[in-house]
């Protein structure tokens, strides 16, 4: 027990009692959930002793069921990318409801610039533009997508920063506008048949690669740069940030732009992975992205949270979804159980936080 007085001296301070980082709680929750599925696999009679994470019937050259490990993270990688941006918005004291429809609108637009000319030797039946838009280099749709995302984010941010309307309303309005754009773009028709290079962006485990890379980038941004510090400051006390001379308006616009660009990038990966874009894509993504962040310990009142937490929050979702299929849970109960687990994970987190701060 190291009892010292730190800082500029004063009270007794027992640094061995420093509370764990919040991220640890959610990691524990993750482990508990995995363990529960493992146990259920052994206990439920119809499961025949299958394992959740381990390779029990020798389908892989590994002790793990690698297909499972892959799908767990693959299926949350795309919403995870959105969640990285949503995390920043929430830390800055805002909220972004527009990310789901933005994914749909961006996917529709981007795919129109990523179409191939010939499908199995026949002319592309889904062409949106004339022939000039066929077989464009892959960088074009990427730039178009990111630019569209930045544009929408800038509008969100400017309304929030300059007219000071609640972010909930600004992004709810944008939610509807983006849904409209997605449907209007091709009058509801899906857009398919991308070029091979475009299809490569989200093929196989690529979404996971992007997710990990962007998560690291965002982590560095939030933890080590002025941008990140100001984001926390604004979320913590906007007036104080303003009085401290932070350009709050410009900063907010920047945060929403980054969030929307991440959502737009997620749309690119999503449409590439699915080889199609359709206007109904991204339904409820905004809610799931927010839920991932909050499960990961991001506070909806702003000022608190981390990218590591959000990544762990995303993993919780992945494990749950995969686990439900694994134990063959009836689909009606899946959605209920998902609700219960979201609540449970956050309750666990709160409870551990309280216990930690109350520890003698």
């Amino acid at each position: 027990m190291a009892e010292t007085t730190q800082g500029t001296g004063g009270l007794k301070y027992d640094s061995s009692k420093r509370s764990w980082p919040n991220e640890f709680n959610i990691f524990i929750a993750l482990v508990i959930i995995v363990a529960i599925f493992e146990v259920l696999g052994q206990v439920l009679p119809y499961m025949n002793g299958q394992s959740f994470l381990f390779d029990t019937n020798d389908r892989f050259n590994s002790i793990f069921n690698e297909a499972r490990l892959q799908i767990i993270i693959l299926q949350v990688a795309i919403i995870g990318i959105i969640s990285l941006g949503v995390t920043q918005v929430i830390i800055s004291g805002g909220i972004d409801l527009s990310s789901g429809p933005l994914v749909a609108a961006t996917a529709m637009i981007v795919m129109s610039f990523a179409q191939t000319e010939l499908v199995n030797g026949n002319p592309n039946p889904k062409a949106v533009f004339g022939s000039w838009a066929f077989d464009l280099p892959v960088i074009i749709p990427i730039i178009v997508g990111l630019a569209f995302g930045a544009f929408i984010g800038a509008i969100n941010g400017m309304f929030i920063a300059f007219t000071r309307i609640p972010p909930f309303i600004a992004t709810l309005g944008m939610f509807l506008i983006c849904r409209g754009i997605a449907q209007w773009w091709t009058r509801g028709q899906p857009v398919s048949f991308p070029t091979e290079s475009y299809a490569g962006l989200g093929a196989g485990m690529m979404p996971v690669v992007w997710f990990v890379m962007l998560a690291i980038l965002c982590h560095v941004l939030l933890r080590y740069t002025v941008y990140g510090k100001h984001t926390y400051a604004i979320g913590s006390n906007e007036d104080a940030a303003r009085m401290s001379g932070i350009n709050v308006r410009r900063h907010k616009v920047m945060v929403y732009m980054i969030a929307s660009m991440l959502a737009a990038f997620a749309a690119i990966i999503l449409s590439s992975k699915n080889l199609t874009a359709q206007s109904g894509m991204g339904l409820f993504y905004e809610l799931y992205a927010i839920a991932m962040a909050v499960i990961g310990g991001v506070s909806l009142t702003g000022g608190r949270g981390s990218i590591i937490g959000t990544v762990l929050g995303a993993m919780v979702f992945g494990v749950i979804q995969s686990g439900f299929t694994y134990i063959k849970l009836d689909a009606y109960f899946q959605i209920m159980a998902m609700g219960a687990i979201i609540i449970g994970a956050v309750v666990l987190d709160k409870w551990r936080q309280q216990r930690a701060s109350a520890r003698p």
Partner: protein
Amino acid sequence: MSDIILETRNLTKHYGGVHALQDATFTLRKGEHVAIMGDNGAGKSTFVRQITGVEQPTRGEIHFGGKQVHFAGPLDAREAGIEAVFQTLALADDLDVSDNLFLGREKTKFDWLGPFRFLDYKAMRADTIAALEKTAVKIPNIRNTIQNMSGGQRQCVAIARTATFHSKLTIMDEPTAALGVQETAQVENIIRTLKEQGEPLILISHNMRQVMDLVDRIVVFRRGRICANLRKEDTDGQDVVAYITGAKTQPEYEVAEAV
């Protein structure tokens, strides 16, 4: 004229129907320390909020450093060289002491990264400890967030922030209200140091002893108006109280008041 650093002319602020500040005409010379006193709700903080750009005045002019200024926000005022400790302190609760101290002017590395330049945590922490020693406050762990601090500790952080950076004008709105005996003494020392360095100061305080000890001139607010402008040598505690309570008004500030 050139030794006047701040001047306001007929500065007025109405909140809806509330006339919180009415025709405040005020000057501050270079190197001068002035106290603003007055009852609760007399308009002192309102006056400060107008000259620091936190709010936009209803009417009136502000001249700073010789030319008329229109601060669109506190950022402008700070860039012009005005540092302020606000009554509400303006601290970010979720950040720690050194983050708050350097908020808005972080020490950084790789500055070519623009808004994404890196923070130099090490340098900031070292400077923080030095700055806090000036205020004599005891903070068990400077990595603690502000929300876990006592009222006095918060106030010391806010003061340390202002005292750490050189400025053309320092404004302190009741800086020692929550401070203990030792800490108050230290803050008063800080103010004396400013005086020695020739930096001008506006001090709002209800503490007569402190005001008499520290400043050159006392301006009294009453019901949103300035009612007296007293050189310290020409007055004493009782006299000032008479102005504050309304028993006296200097002739040049008399107005036909509807009571």
